[in-house]
């Protein structure tokens, strides 16, 4: 056992563990986080996904000691209580059936949209391909991702300065 320091959802946490312990069990059992879940332990399904410095990462196979970046779990997507646009879209589209896999679906979509804010349908399918749902809520997941893209774009358009201003004076 040894003390490992993690940055999780904006806080610094210390855990006294075998440092080879997969991150999943530390997040769940030591830090009391419920977003990431055990699905396969083989990095095949995505239920255990967390973001590490914004990269979707399968916590079931990552040794805790190897994680040095900022970890974000599903709970950390809405730090100030304001839901991530994806979470809101998930509610608006009523995505889950059982919901067990949705942690991985949402976080993988978050990482995908961070890298590509306006993906095509084909890019959504490819980007989400590795995250499994056994209730087969895929159709609604894809609809929710598209909704989040639309609503994020609409919100940023609303907040943006007048179009002419940006192009003109600032250039």
């Amino acid at each position, binding site marked *: *056992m040894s003390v490992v320091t993690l940055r999780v959802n904006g806080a610094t946490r210390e855990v006294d563990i*075998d440092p080879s*312990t*997969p991150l999943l*069990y530390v997040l*769940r*059992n030591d830090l*009391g*986080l*419920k*977003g990431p*879940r*055990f*699905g*396969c*332990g*083989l990095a*095949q*399904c995505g*239920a255990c996904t967390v973001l590490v410095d914004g990269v979707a990462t399968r916590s079931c196979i990552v040794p805790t000691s190897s994680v040095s970046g900022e970890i974000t*779990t*599903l*709970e950390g*997507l*809405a730090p100030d209580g304001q*839901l991530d646009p994806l*979470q809101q879209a*998930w*509610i608006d589209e*009523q*995505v*889950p*059936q*059982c*919901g*067990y*896999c*949705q*942690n991985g679906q*949402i976080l993988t979509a978050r990482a995908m949209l961070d890298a590509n804010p306006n993906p095509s*349908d084909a890019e*959504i*399918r*490819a980007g*989400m*391909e590795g*995250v*499994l*749902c*056994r*209730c*087969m*809520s*895929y*159709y*609604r*997941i*894809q609809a929710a991702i598209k909704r989040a893209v639309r609503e994020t774009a609409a919100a940023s358009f609303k907040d943006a300065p007048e179009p002419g201003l940006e192009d003109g004076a600032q250039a």
Partner: protein
Amino acid sequence: MSNTLALPQAIEDAIRRVNPSTSRRNFLKSSGALVVTCSIGSLPGGKVLAQAVGAGPYPDPDYLQLDTWIVIHPDNTATFYVGKTDGGQGTGTAFRQMMCDELDIAYDKTNLVMGRTDITPDQGGSGGSDGVERDGWPMRRTAAEARRVLLELAAEHLNTPVAALRVSDATISVAADSTRSVTYAELIGGRRFDVALTGNNINATTGVAQVKPVQELRVIGQSIPRYDIPAKVDGSLTWAVDVQLPGMVHARNVKPPIAGATLRSIDEASVADVPGFLRIVSRGNYVAVVCEREEQAIRAARQLKVDWAPPAQAPFPASDALFDYIRGAEPTSVSVADVSGDPDAALAGASVRLEADYEVPFQGHTAIGPAHALADPSDGQLTIYSNDMKSYGLRNGVAEFLSLPRERVRVVYMDGPQVYGRTAADDVGFEAAFLARELGRPVRVQWMRDEETAWDTKGPAYTFKLRGGLDAQGKLTALDYASRAVDYNHVNYNEPDTVLIAQLFGIRRANPDPGEAKAPASQYAIPNQRMMASVVSLPLAWETPLRTGNLRDPDGPQVTFAFEGFIDELAAAAGADPVQFRLDMIAASDEDERFRRARSLATVRAAAEAFEWDARPAPNPRLRDTQGPIVPGRGIAFTHRNGTVVATIAEVEVNRDTGRVWCKRLVCAHDCGLTVNPMGLKHTVECGMLHGLSRALWEEVQFDTEKVTSVDWVTHPSLRHSDTPESIEVVLVNGDPNPGRPDLPHYGAGEASHKPMIAAVANAIYDATGVRLRRAPFRRERVLAALRANS
């Protein structure tokens, strides 16, 4: 507050599940009412209802007491207690809607407790798509009775006859003078109704009041968002898999490496170096390791050296040889043997005769989250935290398994990964209970991926032999159907002598379940027919990973694939449009239970209309002119499930170079009578279809002559994002001959749309390619081989 509760507060909160978007706190703030936070079952002022429980024992809640079902709180809110569970189909929201409507209370002022054996009446939990269809009725009737009692109390309070009162959102007022009013809370908040109900069984539970006619329902029919979704999306929900208790330890199973192997010895020294190692628990062929921490238990289970004696004979044929084995086996029983008319003579006299064999392999549940449970033996009682869809059965089964009085066992149902029949054959709940008693500490068990995929219960494999005859006019005059299912020693729900741990202990019931093979539902006019269905057994009937159990409409997808596939073959042989061919046979049918004929006609027509189906025979005439590898096709399949009628049309693209089938579009017409929540219903129908699509395209249990070899998501592929149709349309049909009747029933929806999917896809592949696939699933290599064999 939590002193009266035996459960940790976090678990209580998870079970309360107040709709977060309209939480009670917010409601009370905005309404200016006195804020009283009630925990489940406990009431302010120290008065405790039957639902309030401490450290046990846990007698059965009395379903013949109104207080068991409904509690009105002092803040004029209500809690409903029902004996069902929600596997993610939104039934909890639907139950709440039904009870709100009958009680006349706003949805946002209520919450619902489900499946907790100590405080909710035993409605058996979930299964068979009967939650709304059957169990919604006692919910509606008890809520209507509560409203009736409240009206009587109000009549006295307001000194006005009931007939001169009106009810709106938990407030009763004098119709002629709305300033004179009284709330439900003022009449009974925090106190007992003390009203007895009647009924020979829980399904018949009723008071004196009548339920409302459909025309007066206001909450039923609304697309109210599911209350459980926000907490599932923001990570705040506590699932059964999340529960942690002080002193809790972790266990993992070690399964026999070869089916039917016998335990010789365990080398305990092989795990002595695992940190946190506590104990090996073994009985018969059941082996588990227990450690302080979860990852330690996983490591110990992998590291433990166990010496197993292989079985004397192979437990089963390899999956490649399965269908020949089934056809050559001596049946263990005959489930169906029905003959009407003279099928042999009619076949002999037919103008066109067809014959075909269909095959469906074992298909598994393969839940996204492997089985898990936590059992707590504190206080001489046993509490099991579980996602068992039939929590009451788990309680009864565990009590019998461990020879405990039922009153000392309770099951706290919580959300979990998909159910679909698997969690009611709840091996892991029994394992956790057994281990908790052995250890004297709370024990949490979860299966590993390979264990779950290999050893979960399986939907039975089937072979079918069909013969059919058409007369000179292309009408179906004779059908000879013979099915065989590998279903001997079928594992039913939470039986203490068939759950896997019991089998591994060496427990054998004297009379194994004979199993069942099915014939298709009677849905067409076929003047001469023979329906035969037989069960066969594999060599190994006990302790086998190929034990069969109930998988979402247990035999429906298999039987409907063969039957509706063969009907499609007959339509093609007749040169008939597949929709019209079916409509003609429905119209001529005398099968009209629950007005099924009219509803079937309406449903098939609705599907065809929504799809913009143009009448023509299959295969697609464009096939001849298509140059590229992609060929399009469409297929219909139609069936019943209990009271529900469903017709599904699949549009596919088949890649002739790769064998890939993409189901591009799905249209489903679905008549389940009165719709409680259209949005929730459509979503469940949609996901039922896609689950069926996964079984059509991907799912198959593979094994050699020792063990299951499809054990993870690589070796056991499932539907993925790239397989998802680009369009899904669900048409809700009310085909009742009297669609506005005030007693229109609500039928089930959890399985119906799942049932015809394999058939619809197979029929679409035929339309696209002219090649009939009679062996599911339609994986690329199988499609490619069939295309090449026919080219």
